[in-house]
C-alpha cells in the first residue's frame, strides 16, 4: 500500500520538474494537467488507505474543477478569453 | 411532455450517479432540484439520446466500447514502450485525416477515440478533415492514414449514428 503512494509521489516529482523547467507556458500547463490527474488517482488511493468514503467525493470534485481550470488555461493561452 | 419527463429523468440519474446513495433525504432533494432545473431548461434539451435505446444500437455501442478498450490498452503499451526505450523512437508530424462521418456528435466521438488510441492526438476538426498529431508517421498517403488511424472506429460509429 505504502509502495503505491511512493510511486505516485515519484510521478508527481517528475511532472513537477517539467512544470518548473518549462520552457514555454504550454509545457507548464501540460505538466499541471498531468499533475491534476495523478492527484485525482492519488486521492482515490488515499481513500482506500484511510478507509474513508468521503475522500472519493473530494476526488470527484477535484477532478471536475481541475478539468474546468485546465480548459480555461488552454483557452487563455490561445487568446480566446 | 415526453421531453419534460426525459429531461427530468436524465437530471435525476446524474444526481443519483453523483451521490450514489438511495437514502430518503438525498432522493427528495435530488427530485426537487431536478424538477426546478427541468422547469427552466426542458425546452432547450435535445431528445436525440432517446433514439439510442434500440436493441441494435445498444449492441453496437457495446461493441464499440470493447473495440475502444482494446485500442486504449494497446496504445498505452505502445506509448509506454517508446517512453522507456533509451533511443526515444519517435517520428512525429501532423497529418490530415478525411472522415466519412456526417453528424457532429459522431465526429466528436471519433476525435476523442482517436486521441486515446496508439500515438495519435486530434489537434483540430475543420469540416470533414481532422488534423492529427501522429507520434510515428508511417505514411503520407490518405488511404493508409485512414486505415491505420480510424477505420475500425468509423465502421461501428456509422452503424450507431447514421
Amino acid at each position: 500500500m505504502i509502495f503505491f503512494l511512493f510511486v505516485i509521489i515519484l510521478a508527481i516529482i517528475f511532472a513537477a520538474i517539467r512544470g518548473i523547467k518549462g520552457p514555454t507556458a504550454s509545457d507548464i500547463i501540460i505538466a499541471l494537467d498531468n499533475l491534476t490527474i495523478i492527484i485525482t488517482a492519488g486521492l482515490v488511493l488515499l481513500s482506500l488507505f484511510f478507509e474513508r468514503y468521503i475522500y472519493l467525493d473530494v476526488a470527484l470534485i477535484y477532478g471536475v474543477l481541475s478539468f474546468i481550470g485546465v480548459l480555461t488555461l488552454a483557452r487563455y493561452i490561445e487568446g480566446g478569453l | 411532455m415526453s421531453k419534460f419527463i426525459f429531461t427530468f429523468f436524465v437530471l435525476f440519474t446524474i444526481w443519483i450517479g453523483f451521490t450514489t446513495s438511495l437514502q430518503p433525504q438525498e432522493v427528495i432533494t435530488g427530485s426537487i432540484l431536478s424538477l426546478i432545473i427541468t422547469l427552466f431548461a426542458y425546452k432547450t434539451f435535445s431528445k436525440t439520446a432517446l433514439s439510442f435505446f434500440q436493441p441494435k444500437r445498444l449492441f453496437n455501442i457495446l461493441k464499440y466500447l470493447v473495440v475502444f478498450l482494446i485500442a486504449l490498452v494497446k496504445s498505452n503499451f505502445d506509448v509506454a514502450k517508446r517512453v522507456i526505450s533509451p533511443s526515444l523512437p519517435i517520428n512525429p508530424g501532423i497529418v490530415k485525416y478525411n472522415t466519412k462521418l456526417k453528424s457532429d456528435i459522431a465526429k466528436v466521438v471519433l476525435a476523442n477515440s482517436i486521441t486515446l488510441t496508439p500515438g495519435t492526438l486530434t489537434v483540430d476538426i475543420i469540416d470533414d478533415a481532422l488534423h492529427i498529431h501522429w507520434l510515428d508517421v508511417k505514411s503520407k498517403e490518405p488511404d493508409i492514414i485512414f486505415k491505420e488511424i480510424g477505420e475500425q472506429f468509423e465502421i461501428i460509429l456509422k452503424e450507431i449514428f447514421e
Partner: protein
Amino acid sequence: MLNILGYILVSVGVAFLFLGAFGIFRMPDIYTRLQAGTKATTLGALGTILGVGLIQPEWFLKTLVIAIFIAISNPISSHALARGSYKIGHKPFMKDDGVDSYSEVELNEGEEF
C-alpha cells in the same frame, strides 16, 4: 479473488501513471509530451480508480463515476491544449521528412468554438 484482481489493476495503473509523468519529463516538444500525458495517464488513472473500486466493492459505483468522468474529460483538455499551443505559434518537433498538414490551414484569430 476480486481483491487480488483489484490490487493487480492498482499496480498496473500506478505504473502507467509513473510512465506518463516520466514521458512528460523526457519527450522533446509540446505535442509529444501531450501524447504521453494523455495516453499513459488515462489508463493509469482508470486502472487505479477501478482497482480501488474492486478492492472495496461497495464503493464501485462512485469509482465508476470518477473513471467515466476522467475518460471523457482527459482527451478534451489535451485537444484544447494542442489547438491552443498551435495557434500561438508552437511548431511541432519533426524529423527531416516530417509532415505538417495543419500549417496549410488559415487560422482565424479569436474564433469562437
